[in-house]
């Protein structure tokens, strides 16, 4: 349908509606909820929405490269959780009684962030990539194994205790706004930078083109001289470093962490990507689309809270949205006969 408009034939209102259904639906529902409860459009609510979306978006971007290459990473949420815990233990106040490393001065928060990102890429990301590409374990199973391993490590590392007493510098940063502009939380700035970097990587480097090629047709990619093993490992390493970044952001935002932090977030990330046009059959997906998908999810959640819908029901609605979105996506790829 989109081809019609592209080819310069007459503008088709029906196809416009179908192609932009998601945006239209979200705007319409937001207006509806806003009319019911004007606080929906308040500064605080929008800032809250942006902060939530920022963390989720980084996770979704991390998993998107893996998904585009027809793999999957079910360990995403647990990785975010472990990274959050590690960051927190390194950024506890000296005067906090339950400090995990009682004699250690809190480190520089940005140094912690970078070390955790590199560390995760070189350990969990590398192992995930090797298991999937070298040992040929299906990504679904391999990353599921990693999910429980990482959770176990998080439990051991934290002693199954919550970690609090974070330095104010860290938590205030997450609560703060960019240049004191109330609407833009600091977290959103980090996410914006990550988005630009990923957009550049996906669209303007050989890495991106190779990624789409592998997703489009792995066998043809191999014949074309693309080292699929190296690419798969790279995708998991990039993913792991972004999960670590998300953990750093989430720990600061939550003001304290536990081994259960970010449990199950991979599913929201996968759903966000898919709703945003990352095909479950690989080969397609854009950064802008992923943002759309993640936003839809977050807006939907907040809308349901504002309408006073019971939490139990919000789970049911979210589940339906995921299934319907993927069913619609699959329709595009089922061979027409």
């Amino acid at each position, binding site marked *: 349908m989109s081809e019609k408009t592209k080819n310069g034939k007459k503008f088709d209102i029906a196809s416009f509606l179908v192609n932009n259904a998601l945006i239209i639906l979200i705007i319409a529902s937001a207006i509806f909820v806003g009319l019911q409860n004007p606080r929906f459009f308040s500064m605080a609510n929008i800032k809250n929405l942006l902060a939530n979306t920022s963390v989720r978006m980084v996770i979704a971007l991390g998993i998107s490269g893996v998904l585009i290459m027809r793999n999957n990473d079910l360990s995403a949420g647990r990785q975010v959780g472990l990274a959050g815990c590690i960051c927190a233990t390194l950024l506890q106040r000296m005067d906090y009684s339950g400090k995990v490393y009682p004699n250690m001065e809190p480190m520089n928060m940005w140094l912690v962030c970078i070390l955790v990102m590199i560390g995760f890429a070189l350990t969990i990301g590398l192992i995930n990539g090797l298991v999937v590409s070298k040992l040929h374990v299906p990504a679904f199973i391999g990353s599921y194994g990693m999910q429980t391993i990482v959770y176990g490590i998080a439990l051991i590392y934290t002693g199954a205790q919550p970690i609090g007493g974070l330095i104010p510098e860290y938590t205030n940063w997450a609560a703060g706004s960019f240049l004191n502009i109330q609407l833009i939380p600091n977290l959103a700035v980090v996410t914006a930078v990550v988005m630009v970097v990923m957009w550049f990587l996906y669209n303007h480097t050989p890495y991106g083109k190779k990624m789409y*090629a592998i997703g489009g047709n792995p066998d*043809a990619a191999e014949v074309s001289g693309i080292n699929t093993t190296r690419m798969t490992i790279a995708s998991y390493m990039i993913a792991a470093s972004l999960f670590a970044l998300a953990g750093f952001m989430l720990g600061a935002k939550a003001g304290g962490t536990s081994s259960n932090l970010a449990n199950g977030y991979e599913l929201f990330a996968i759903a966000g990507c898919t709703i945003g046009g990352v095909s479950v059959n690989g080969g397609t997906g854009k950064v802008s689309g992923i943002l759309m998908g993640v936003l839809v999810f977050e807006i939907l959640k907040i809308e349901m809270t504002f309408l006073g819908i019971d939490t139990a029901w919000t789970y049911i609605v979210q589940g339906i949205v995921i299934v319907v979105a993927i069913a619609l996506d699959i329709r595009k790829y089922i061979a027409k006969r």
Partner: protein
Amino acid sequence: MSEYILEMKDICKSFPGVKALDHVSLQLKPGHVHSLMGENGAGKSTLMKCLFGIYKKDEGQIIYNGEEVTITDPFDALNKGIAMVHQELMPIRERSIAENIYCGRYPTKSYGPVKVIDHKKMYEDTQKLLDDLGLNFKATDKLGTLSTSQMQLVEICKAISANAKIIILDEPTSSLTQKEVDKLFEIVKQLTSRGCGVIYISHKMDEILKISDEVTIMRDGQYIGTWPAKGLTTDFIIAKEVGRELTDLYPPKVNTPGETVFEVKDFTSILDNSFKDCSFSVKRGEIYGVAGLVGAQRTELMEAIYGLRGKVSGTVTFDGKQLDIKCPEDAIKNGIALITEDRRARGIFGVLSITDNVAVASLNDYLKYRIMLDHKAINEVVDRSIGELSIKTPSPKEQIKNLSGGNQQKVIISRWLAKEPDVLIMDEPTRGIDVGAKYEIYSIIGRLAKEGKTIIVVSSEMPELIGICDRIMVMCEGRITGVVEGKDMNQEKIMELSTKFRS
């Protein structure tokens, strides 16, 4: 009731970018063998797939036993008594012959309300069928233990066991030896004497003239005509198939082979039943053909040279320098390119644009600031390719899956030309491509050879190899059985070498 068991009238079918069938008709009498002929891409298989319910026809009527029918899927077709033996087999290798034959319609017996599969009956019936047809397999043998040609015979048994009234044989002899072909013809005669109608698709003129009652010829998705087989000549059929004089089937030769540059020595596969001790050498600017029957391991040998398959021994030298090739990346770095046999599965990136499809192998050659892709340079190369190879597309941004087979192939050729390889291996470069595009591809091959590139063409179509190659190497059962050139390049000689190790 009419005299026909089946009439297909004005069938039309379109795929994105191609009209595969344009008002095609076919009439089959009971007890007759009706041959369907035409070049690859003429629409024979598409027509049959419409009949068998694999594709849905866009327009037209199917009249079966005097009634108009709609066939929704292959299961429905089988229930109605229409069976098809596919060109590409769909074997379930890990299950027995009997289970393959009765797949989806297993005989059952009842224990009160519980229905279970009657294994005893299934194996007995299968054994009887195999014996009747004079095939010496056990019904309990795993299908995977048979050779490709034996599987094809089992596939034919499947059609017979379904008590089909119409049996479609789509190139059934492409991997059979002469003996097996004789066997098949006996089976076909048995079938027609029982009143079955057989639709027979083949490229082999002698077979067609021997077995058919009527011949229908198609070209580029159009119905050309139907004639009684008696009195037809090969020349007449070919002229109708290609629609022009025979002389322009292949472009005139323009290349002159130089000195020997590309040498392959002692290639042996890691698999037992694949290529063994294969050595050959090709000259600069030469078009070197590789012939053989299905299963001769030609593709496997080429892919091993390219680093896609494992080998226990074998060296490749170019211009006296030994090349170390462990994966396709190494092959490409050393100036070797491969165009794979199965274009859709391992050639094109369907969802990506033509531009991306062309650039995919040479991304690292178009960088600025070391990491950034130079889109302008890439677009220039793509535009040049579209012009030079006359690729028909609305725009370079078009998804490649929307192009016709011939244009897709040209895009893949452009992909490799962008790398300027010294050696270009093309595996079945014209499979599923219409006649006009074939001619263009032959011209491109000739031009590349003239520029001094070494070209290896693997093909199952002997006339094609004879038409364009300087020399032809023949393989049989994984071994090289000879290299023919000059006046030895004829179908009889090649066929003889292709079946050297077959009984």
